Every structure is written in C-alpha cells, then in structure tokens.
C-alpha cells in the first residue's frame, strides 16, 4: 500500500475524511480526481487551510491537511495552537520534507523545531515515522483517532519491516545493555546501520524507534535508562525541544539521571545539499554515530 492508497481507502470507507493541501500535492497527486468531493486545495495559504480545516471538523469532518512542514507548523502556528489545539479537534497535520529531508532547500525550508513547537501545544500529538513502511503502519490509527496529530511525512525507502503500530508505544530492536539508541524519523536508517556496526565491534545495542514523541513511551525509555550504560539520542531537529529534551523531561520526572550522548542540531541550521552529503557534513552518518558512541561508551563505563 502507498500513502495515496491509504487516503483513498479511508475516504471510500468513511466520507468524513477530507484531504486538504495548500498547493503541495506531492502526497496525493495521483488521487485528486478520484476524491473530488473530499479534496480541497486552498492555494498557498497555510493559515486559511487550517482555519477551514477547523470549520470542516466543527461540521463533523476529519481533515488531513498537507503543506511543507516549515510553513505548515510555523506560518500557521497560531491557527494550529488557537483553533485546533484549544478546541481539541481531530485535524491531522501532515508536514512534508521535515528535518534533513528538505536537503537542498536551505534554512527557510528546514523544519527542525517542528516537533518542539507541535508537542508544546496541549492536545496535539506527534508522529515521526522512521520511513514509508513505518508511516503507513501508523497512519490508519492516527487518522482515525479523535486527537489532533502532527505527522512528519516520511516516504523514504524502509531498511527493515516494521512491527505493528500503537499510538504511544515505541518499537524496540534488540535488548542490548551497553547502549540504547533513541531515534525518531528519517535518521532511523542511520541509527539502524550504526547498531549493526557497533554490534560487529562487540557492543550490545537496543535501538528504540520512538515513533510518537507525544504521547511518549516513558516505560520503554525508563527500562533502557535502568538497563543500559549509555543513552544516545538521534534526531534531525534542534537540540532544544526534541528527543533530547523529551529524555531530559522523562529523567527528571522520575528523579533519574543517565549518561546521554545527543546527536541533534546544536542551535544552528544545517548546510543545504544532497541528503547524503548533508548527513556527512553535519556528522549524522552511521559511521559518525558509531565513532562518537564508542568514545562516549569508553568514558561511561
């Protein structure tokens, strides 16, 4: 199944769903003629699209809105916070090319604070799928839930076949006790590769695919805190407000501490370029993650 097929199936089963876009049709290009009465393109107007989505949901619909992640979460931020958040309406907010996936666009298009600002809105939950397979496994549950959701759209090629999805449950790969790697979104690919390299060097790893930074799977994280020597967070997001912050919040809430090595953007935008070159330049490749993790693990024992 593809993203478009899931949308089609949902709409065919339930007329409640309305697909909206502010002229970013990449995710539904091939189905627009088939869903005419359930499709609205508002033009390049993120605020109006969110406002209309709110009106549609007041009238009993579940709008699934699309735009580039930066413009959707930031240009229309106050509409999301004030109209979707306060009223707690089931609007599904799908942000395209989040994090490193904006590759060559430059800082205007880099949504690397989106997780922070969306999860900061009461009632709004966040889903950051690892790849296309992970996204597709989560979508139906997320679209049919009664809660507003922000979704970091990610149709990159999967490196694994993911497990069944449950809102608020992380997906755990391995039960290693040396290092726990916590990751959400596209960088799962690098984290998974890093796990394999580290294991080949005799380091035992558990890889935690967070899936929903909100609601956060506190239980899985705390288990890793108790059982592992080092925690590594990997995210294509500013260091502030994302996974590193979430981990810090979980630790503090539970009166715990841990050895933590964060991979995040340290108060800076990233160098635009081809995706793999960006990862190399910014130090987010599996090899870089492996190298720094080995060093930090030596200090943590």
């Amino acid at each position: 199944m593809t993203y478009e097929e899931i949308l089609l199936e949902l709409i065919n089963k339930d007329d409640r769903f309305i697909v909206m876009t502010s002229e970013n049709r990449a995710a539904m290009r091939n189905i627009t003629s088939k869903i005419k009465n359930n499709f609205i393109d508002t033009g390049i107007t993120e605020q109006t699209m969110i406002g209309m989505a709110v009106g549609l949901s007041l009238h009993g619909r579940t709008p699934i809105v699309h735009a580039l992640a930066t413009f959707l979460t930031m240009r229309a931020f106050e509409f999301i916070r004030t109209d979707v958040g306060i009223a707690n309406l089931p609007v599904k907010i799908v942000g395209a090319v989040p994090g490193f996936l904006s590759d060559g666009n430059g800082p205007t298009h880099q949504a690397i604070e989106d997780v922070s600002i969306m999860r900061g809105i009461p009632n709004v939950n966040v889903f950051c799928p690892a790849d296309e397979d992970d996204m597709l496994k989560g979508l139906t549950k997320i679209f049919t839930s009664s809660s507003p959701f922000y979704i970091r759209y990610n149709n990159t090629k999967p490196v694994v076949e993911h497990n069944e999805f449950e809102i608020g449950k992380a997906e755990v790969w391995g039960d290693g006790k040396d290092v726990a790697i916590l990751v959400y979104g596209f960088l799962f690919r690098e984290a998974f590769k890093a796990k394999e390299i580290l294991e080949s060097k005799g380091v035992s790893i558990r890889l935690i695919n967070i899936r929903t930074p909100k609601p956060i799977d506190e239980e899985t994280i705390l288990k890793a805190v108790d059982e592992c020597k080092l925690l590594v967070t990997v995210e294509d997001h500013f260091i502030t407000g994302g996974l590193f912050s979430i981990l810090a919040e979980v630790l503090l809430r539970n009166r715990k501490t841990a050895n933590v090595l964060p991979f995040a953007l340290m108060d800076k935008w990233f160098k635009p370029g081809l995706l793999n070159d960006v990862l190399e330049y910014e130090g987010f490749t599996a090899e870089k993650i492996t190298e720094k993790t080995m060093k930090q693990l030596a200090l943590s024992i």
Partner: protein
Amino acid sequence: MTKEQLTELESSALRVREHIIRMSGRGGCFIGASLSCADLIVYLYKIFLNISKETLNDPNRDYFFLSKGHDVPALYGTYVELGWLEEERLKNHLKTNDFIYWHPNKNIPGIEFHSGSLGHNLSVAMGVAYDCYLRRQKNKVVVVVGDGELNEGSMWEAMLVASAYKLDNLLIVVDRNQFQANMQTEDLIPLEPLDKKLEAFGLKTETVDGHNFEAMEKVFLKFPFEKEKVSVVIANTIRGKGLPSIERRADRWFVNFNEEEVEQLLKELHGQTIAKITSETITAR
C-alpha cells in the same frame, strides 16, 4: 418590517446595551466596540438567522461567528434577550466559576467557536460554509468582523480563497465603526475605499447604517447579493453607540468603570443625564 417588530428590536437592543454597560464594571470590558455592533447582532439573531434555543445543535441551523471576539458582551446580552442565557449569569463575568470573560467561549450556548485572536473566524466560517455546500445544505453562515481586523493578512488571504470557492452561502458583516483599538482606522492603516477593495477581491458588497433596523432589513433580505459570490455587508456604525460620553472616543476602548459610573451610564443610555467618567481608561489591551 412591521412596526411591532421594529419596536421589539429597539427595546431588545436597549436592554442589550444595559447588559453591556453592567459588564463594563467589575473588571471592565471592550464597551465601545460592543456598543457599535449591538444593533447588528440583535437584528441578525432576532430576524435574519434561522436558529433558536431548540435548534442550537440542529445541522440545518444557520451559523454565526463573531470573529471580533472582544465584542462578546453584545453577544451574551443578546443571548439573554433570546432566553438562551440566564441574566444572573452575566454577573459571573470574569469569575472563574463560569466561562464568561472578555472573549467568546464555546461552553456558552450559542457560541459556535471561540475567538479573540483577530483574523481567524473567517476561515473557520468558510470551512463550515464549504461543508454545507458539499452536503447540499442550505444553511447561511454569517461572520461578523471588525474594520480594524481587516489589517490582518489572514483576512485577505481567506477572502481570496472564499471567492475562489464561490461561497455564496457565506455572509461577512463588517462592523465599520471607524476605529481600531486606539486609533481611527483612516489615521493608522486606511481601509477606504473599502467596498472597492472587497469587490476587487471578488466579493459583492452592500453598505448600510448598522443602527437602522429597517435599512438593515432591506439589505440583508437581498442575501445572497450575487450568485457564486461571497456577500459582504459594510455596516456603518458608531463606536460607543448609545452613550454620548463614550461615542467615537479613541480613549474609551477598554474601560473598567466603578459602580457609580455604571449607574450614571445606565441613566445616560436612557437620555436622563450625561455621565461623569473619571475611571482611568485602560488602552493597553
């Protein structure tokens, strides 16, 4: 409009103004703007909108949105007159045991959606209007906006989209009281020629005296003004209408009156005296 209807509207509007004045004590309210749209809101609910206490949740009801949410005393005053809200509850204004404060809250029967941040409810109303169109429902969707609110880019963005989607079940009513918070609109960000601007955006406008019920009736009955176009009523109003000591005063934007002033203003409303106001006006809202 019959003479009885007119008398009924005028006496309702007078009582709504009394409610507004009472809400301007005990913490204050946006009195000037509330008084400017009081007649409009009374007219819309009593005559124009197809909605009653029994049909507040009926899918075929007409929808009303107050985008300039700070005028909510006029709305709650009208709800009292319609029998949707007990008059006693207005005394809960700004009390934490109720939902009555400076902007609309959905827990009050009649409120379709909250507002307060300007430039939001037009697009929300458009979502409802478009869905009524999709479902082939005949509801009217009315949204009252401020003239100052037209500074917001989101209003013009929304109007472009509303025109593109030919939402002729949507009616925008501009409370053209010539003031934004602390300034006259034409002295700060001029809007004129407003009708031409709106028409250039593809909307169909009518202009009316927003304090004259018979004139309003003539204009509103023409809705929709043109097939496949959004209708706009530019309602010329007076900020503070009904209280000469407040009318057209930039510094009577938000006021917190003491009990004695409230009593004097009630007398002034009935033409008995001119109130002496000494309470410091709070403009920084």
